[in-house]
């Protein structure tokens, strides 16, 4: 242990960052087309839709809860936006398309938020684990999405709507900007507000937090609400990217999102985790997938590698923690 303590601390605290940089170096050398602005911006766009949810999921997991419904919530929100746009612009009333879309988006976001609050309410009022409520929502919302679309993609959107999920602003993909904005907001919320402090306290020990005069119910409802809101936002981005409300989109996203959060060092036991870690986890997975695609690694192998990464990342985290404690 003669190494410089600064370097040592960088190594124990920033091991994922180091691996990410190494990965980029390796890919820059081996995969042609990796180190281009176009490709990197593409990676950023690809991760952005799951990414916005991952930041919320980080808070949920830190608070000691879980949300399995985010994948279905994305599909539901995409379908709801398309459904409402269609109804408001042609069938129920014939509002101008711009207004119809605005109302649809606002409505989808509000519904999303309250679905999360509902999960929190079930958790705190009736002690139903969020695992169960969101498992029920996962199935229920998926069915609801099929119901309102009748099982067929709805395509009521005009061309300009594609901007939200597919457009560019100052050369940067618009969804990537939403992703970065979400990061900044939640990073600030978790580190510089009383609310963020409460989330860590509640996740670390809910009873101690309650006996400290923290309103545990409100914290849990807010955290789950924000995450469901972000899932709805993600659904709107998806509907814009594929220009339709399709009930089968975003299947299984909940697991990808949770994987990114865990790779980023957040503990499933609650109380421990960082929004920045999730940022690194999301980008890491995005670059890894992109690199393997560029290197023509088969999709099947990609899945296997991803699985291995999740396991190794968690293992590394635990080993580091053990080291720190000793």
């Amino acid at each position: 242990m003669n190494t410089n303590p600064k370097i040592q601390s960088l190594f124990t605290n920033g091991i994922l960052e180091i691996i990410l940089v190494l990965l980029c170096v390796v890919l820059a050398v081996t995969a042609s087309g990796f180190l281009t602005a176009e490709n990197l911006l593409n990676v950023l766009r690809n991760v952005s839709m799951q990414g916005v949810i991952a930041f919320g999921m980080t808070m949920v997991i830190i608070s000691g809860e879980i949300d399995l419904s985010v994948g279905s919530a994305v599909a539901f929100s995409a379908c709801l936006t398309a459904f409402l746009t269609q109804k408001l612009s042609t069938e129920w009333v014939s509002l101008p398309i711009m207004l119809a879309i605005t109302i649809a988006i606002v409505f989808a976001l509000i519904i999303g938020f309250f679905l999360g609050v509902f999960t929190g309410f079930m958790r705190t009022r009736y002690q139903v684990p969020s695992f169960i409520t969101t498992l029920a929502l996962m199935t229920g919302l998926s069915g609801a999405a099929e119901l309102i679309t009748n099982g067929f993609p709805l395509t009521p959107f005009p061309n300009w709507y594609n901007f939200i999920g597919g457009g560019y602003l100052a050369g940067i993909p618009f969804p990537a900007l939403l992703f970065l904005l979400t990061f900044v907001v939640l990073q600030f919320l978790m580190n510089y507000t009383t609310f963020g402090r409460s989330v860590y306290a509640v996740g670390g020990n809910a009873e101690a937090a309650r006996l400290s005069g923290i309103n545990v119910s409100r914290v849990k409802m807010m955290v789950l609400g924000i995450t469901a809101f972000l899932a709805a936002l993600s659904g709107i981005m998806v509907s814009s990217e594929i220009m339709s409300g399709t009930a089968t989109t975003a299947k299984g996203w909940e697991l990808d999102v949770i994987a990114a959060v865990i790779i980023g060092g957040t503990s499933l036991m609650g109380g421990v985790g960082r929004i920045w870690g999730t940022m690194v986890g999301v980008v890491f997975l995005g670059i890894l997938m992109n690199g393997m695609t560029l290197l023509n690694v088969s999709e099947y192998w990609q899945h296997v590698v991803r699985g291995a990464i999740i396991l190794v990342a968690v293992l590394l985290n635990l080993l580091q923690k053990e080291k720190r404690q000793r």
Partner: protein
Amino acid sequence: MSTPAHSLQTHSLRKEYPGTVALNDVSVSFIGGKIHALIGKNGAGKSTLVKIIAGATRPTRGSILVDGLEVSLPSPRHALERGIVAVHQELSLVPELTVAENILLGRLPKMRGLGNSIIDWRSVFARAEQILADLGIQLDVREKASSLGIAQQQVVEIAKAMSYEPSILILDEPTSALAQHETERLFDVLKKLKMRGVVLLYITHRLQELREIADTVTALRNGALVGTIGIDQATPAAIVQMMFGEVVQRSRPADLIAPTEPFIEVRSLCRSGAFRDVSFTVNKGEVLGIAGLLGSGRTELLRAMFGADPPDSGELIIAGQHIRPTSPEQMKELGVAMTPENRKDQGLVQLLSTRINLCMSSLNQIAYHGFLTHAREERLVERNVQELDINVARMDAPVAFLSGGNQQKVVIGKWLNTNPRLVLLDEPTRGIDVQAKQQMFQIIWDMSKRGISCLVVSSELEELLDICHRILIMRSGRIVSDVRPSELSLENLFAACMKEEV
């Protein structure tokens, strides 16, 4: 008496952790048939020594001899096989299993045949009952551990240890959760074991117990052995000298005047199954003690007043305002604070840093419109460290690394930051060393002088006599009398708490 006495010796036991020496070449020997008290402040090395003997940690170097033979104890299992059993301060029962299963965990009697794989429940319960009967304890062995109180769980832990028929038994603060009569029963059991030649190592912070139970007193300080003396030489002064070297014994300050202006009136508070019709008044700046046995409803009363477990009926009157407590959040706003009995699990978030824990109840004070300001946080934390003399190497390290006494100070500091007017203290001195206790008294007196009322629940009755202006005696969920410390002796107070309901 016929069994030969066992013995336990250590030779230059040393344990190094990165940066510190937890145990510094300790050579000590304990013979069977005697009860050896092991004393020392928190961090003196008692736990490390016990852990090594129980096989939970391996020493950096040195050796252990059991009955004169060197043994290697790479795991607790090896220690158990040698007849070394340790009962730790932290309870380790499996909550969803029955008392009997917990006692015989890992060694449940099996039926003959079928590869000895079927549990013989009848003998499980019979054997567990036998063990408890030997200890003179009445407890339903079919009850789940989770439904037991802390004292009963402690008893089950001890029964579990007995079931191994130990030749060396280590008890780490076994009485910290026990009421007086339970403690006496435990002592009877220990005396029985003594007759059988068992080596008994007894760790305690309760110095008054030493005289009652110990034959020798061995002290550790800063990881090193100070020495061993016979109990006849162990005067309080000698013990304090061994544990601390030099220490200032703070006595009750002279300027502690009993205040008369009422601050809060508790009126007919009831909570079914815990206490009923409790009424009393706490004056401004008064230190009011609540004496009573475990299960008398004292903890439940504090929790109800704090809104942690709201009362079924009754009310509090603060400054003419009638209040029905419903949540800690509400009571915090009204200037009420509580430091819970179980500070480890309920008072602090162990994962988080000392700094964050200190500000946990006062988030609004360190924030400006919800946004945390580092400067305000720093101000509060620094004030805490100064006022409470909290000994913390790194404010950003998890609070779990602190000693019991420092953790308790953090819990109190956390509440002082809310500028409380009434602090409910549940067992504020449990599991902390003598010096930290004195500091705790001083903190309580200081609060009193600043006009903060304190309601103190403690099993250590002599402490209540030392620190309180007035003491309420609670029995079976009711307040039965209201006394002044000057009016009665420790024996009277014990008797008043113990008296059976007529």
